[in-house]
Structures are given as C-alpha cells and as structure tokens.
C-alpha cells in the first residue's frame, strides 16, 4: 500500500475514533475496488479490533442507486464496534448518522469456502441464533453519506459506525419474511418493514454473503455475526437522542446516543 493510502487510512481511523471528518480533497483516494478494500482493512488493523462478522448493505434498489452499484456490499464487523442492547454510544453529527433495523444471524459452525454452492438447508443448519439489531451508519468523509460513491464508502468501512444486537434467540428456522420491525427515533415511530425487505428473506442475504466470500476463497467462522440489511429504511439520529427497534417476539434493541468528547 502506498504512503498516500496509508495516510488516508490513518485519517479515516482517527475520524472514526474521535468523531471528526476527513476532507477527501487533498487525499490520495482509492482508484479501484482492491484499493478501497485495502484501505478498509488497514483502518481495521489500526483499530486493533478483532473481526467478528459482516454487515451487508445496498440490499435495496434505492441504496444501490445512491451508491452507484448493482449488488449488495459486505463490510466487516469488529468487536469494539459491536455491542449488546441496551447501549450508550457516541455519534458525530458531522458523520450524518442514521439507523437501520436489521435481522442478525450468529453462526454455530464454520461455513468454509467451497466451490460447489451450499444448499439453503446447509446454510440454515450452520446458524445458531437470530437477533434483532440496529446498525448505525454514517460517513467519516465530509459531505455525508450518499455523496461519496461506492469506492469511498467501501474505504470508509462501508459506512459502518456500529452494530447493537438485541437478545439472541435459538435459531429454529423461523420465517423472517413476514416478521415485522418498527423503528422509533426519539420516541417517534419512523421506518418500518418486514424481513422480506432484505432481499426477500434475510436468509437470502446470508446465502449471498457465503457465495461472495467463497468466490474469494474465504468462509465464515463459528461465532461470527451477519447483519443482513435494513428492513426499516434509513432514519437520521442525533447526539442526545435515542433509537429503539421493536422486533416483536424477538424483543427490542435500544440505543442512547451521546456526543464525542471534545467534539
């Protein structure tokens, strides 16, 4: 990785850590997907945090249009930005933060890379538990989410701020397609939807991820979490506010937002 991308990586990590923003002008920017993912990985390396799963974004036509892509995208989850509900977390208004209500799976066994695709029942059999989750998204680049395009968004940890998971329930092949999720911001009902909003079924998103990783010779490890994409659209949040996602029988996910110190 050249020094320019290293400098960009350090700037993005500092921005994530402190709540500041990075001006893309004046930085060496990634020119292709490989460089964008290399920056994303270097930011994770700088954080020293262990990877613990994936978040999938761009599962809707609208999100794909905004980011200029035609397929979902996978970003890495790491332990220091993955929390259990209820959580109290800092966000920066400058990052344009928003919340998404999603279904999350936790694997009970490895799904190693394979040339022949996994049958749906084998993927389901590898799941140990399901939970409701809220993903916080935003942009460390000045200008906000949606202004950066696919490469910069990928470099910037796929717009991931953090994930908060609700209670884990044993996986019993529940049908998530009609399962309703409602998002409340500062106590007011905002976005809502069902599991069908995630590529027709959150299991389809997991199957997409497994294929996507297998094509790169990678698999999933037991214990990893996969957040399968928003069922409630995107709702802005502010420091000092709250977000609650109601997953009915799967319980609630609650976050109270604070400001960054000194921001």
């Amino acid at each position, binding site marked *: 990785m050249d020094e320019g991308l290293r400098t960009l990586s350090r700037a993005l990590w500092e921005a994530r850590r402190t709540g500041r923003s990075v001006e893309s002008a004046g930085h060496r920017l990634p020119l292709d997907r490989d460089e964008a*993912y*290399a920056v994303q*990985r*270097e930011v*994770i*390396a*700088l*954080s*020293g945090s*262990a*990877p*613990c799963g994936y978040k999938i974004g761009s599962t809707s036509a609208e999100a794909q249009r905004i980011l200029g892509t035609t397929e979902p995208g996978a970003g890495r989850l790491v*332990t220091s930005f993955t929390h259990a509900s209820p959580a109290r977390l800092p966000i920066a208004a400058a990052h344009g933060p928003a919340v998404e209500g999603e279904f999350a799976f936790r694997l009970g*066994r*490895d799904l*190693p*890379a394979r040339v022949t695709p996994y049958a749906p029942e084998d993927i389901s059999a590898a799941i140990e538990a399901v939970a409701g989750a809220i993903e916080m998204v935003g942009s460390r680049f000045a200008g906000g989410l949606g202004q950066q395009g696919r490469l910069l968004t990928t470099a910037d940890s796929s717009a991931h701020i953090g994930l908060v998971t609700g209670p884990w329930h044993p996986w019993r092949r529940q049908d998530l397609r009609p399962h309703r999720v409602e998002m409340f911001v500062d106590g007011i009902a905002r976005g809502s939807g069902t599991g069908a909003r995630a590529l027709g079924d959150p299991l389809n998103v997991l199957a997409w991820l497994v294929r996507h990783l297998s094509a790169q*010779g*990678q*698999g999933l*490890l*037991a*214990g990893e979490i996969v957040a399968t994409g928003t069922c409630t659209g995107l709702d802005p949040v502010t420091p000092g506010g709250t977000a609650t996602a109601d997953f009915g029988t799967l319980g609630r996910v609650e976050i109270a937002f604070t400001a960054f110190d000194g921001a």
Partner: protein
Amino acid sequence: MFDTARTLNENQDRLARLLVEANRTETLLHPEALQLAPLTEAEALEVSWRVWAALGHELGGFKVGATARDNIRTLGAHRPMLGRLRRDRIFRAPYTVGFDKLMAPVTECEFAFELAADLPAGRTDWPPGDIAAEIARVFPAIEIAERRVQRVPGYPYTQLIADNAAGGRLVLGAPLAWAGQALNAIPVTLLVDDVVVARGDGSAVMGDPLASLAWVANEAARLGHPVRAGDILTTGSCTGMKPAERGTRQTARFGGLGEVVIDFR
C-alpha cells in the same frame, strides 16, 4: 487433534480471528494496537492449529524456528517452534517474487529434507541417526519467513508460535548430491546482490541439521501431523535472519554443492 469448534478462551479466540483475517487479506497487524493478554505456549499452539484449519490450505511440510542459538536469543524463545508450510508456498529456485506480496519477510538459509516414506503415527522419539535412514533427498533452501504482525523488538515469542512460527515461503535449490557426509561441516554463505552478508554452517541448528530434522519429525507427530512421504521439512537457519529488500537478489551458496537464488522485485 485439536477440536476446531469453539473451545478457545476469549484471548485465544481474538488472536485467532485477527490472524485468520491477516492471512486472508495479507494485511499486517499493528502490534501496538492489539490488546492481547499473555498466551502460554500450549494456548499458542491451539491458536496456530485453529488458524491453520480455518484457512484450509494444503499442508506441504514443516518449518522450525528458533533452532539457532542467536535466533533463540533474538526471538526470546525457550526452545524451537514448529510451523506448517503451505504446499502452494514451496517453490523451486530460481524464484522471483513481488516484494509487496510478502509480509514482513526475512530470509534464512537452511537444509531442507524430503522423506522417502510416511513416518509411523505415534512415534515421537526419533534419534537423528534413525531419521537419516528415512531421507529421500536433501535440498539447499532459503526460507522466506513471514509474519502477520509487524516486527518489533520484544514481540512475545508465544504470539509468534501462534502466528505459525513465522511460516512463509520456502525456495528449494536442486537436490544436493549427499552421500551421508556431515552436513554440519558444509559452509553456507548468503549474498545480497553479490555481497556476502552472512556466513554459517549446519552446526548452527542444534549442532547438526539431522538433529533438527529429528526434532521436527518428533514435534510434528506430537502435534498430530506425523510426517508423510513427500513432505518437505526445513531445519532452521544457518545464517541468522536477514530482512528481504525490494529490488535485490539473494543467493545462498552451500559449499560447492548447490545454491539458491531469489529475486525480490
């Protein structure tokens, strides 16, 4: 031998995940950013196994680190450490490699061996004399040791064990015409761009490469991988550890018997 289901403690699990990711993405970890509690040797071996299993590479043989007195002092290890070699990372000289593909590379000139037959599982007490009888071929070799964590002084040696004992790539020269002569008397010289930078001989590794070979065979069996025919076993550095540099050629000369050349582009 190790149960690859979730039997690691939190500290081990964290390190295993970091190392799997670093291996897959070929991104160096920053040691000052890791917050790991100290590992015991046994815990490190479990992490090493878990990482190897998760990556799914084909086993091509074994390497040993910290056989030479200096290496033990430099690495802080109490005894040698075993690493697994990927079959797809064993090459024949001359070898050219893009420097940017390598992760914190250092080179070591070593004697490598191929055995004629599978060793029986369960035997962990091979003496050097007996193991010599199992040798099919002896190769001059340069090991390109690689780490997944940036090199810093004082790096805990148990974390190095967990990181596959700095296993990387192995480059083999043409097999030596070996008629049983003492390997520990063969002078080994390392040149960088035709300038001699290190000298040594086989006595650097436990007194004799055959002693190191026996150690490797025994340790591999103890860890649940009895050595098979065709596995390549490399026995530790005769010339210390030399960081590789972009745009240079390294040549290892083994007496007048053979040499190995690597170009780092």
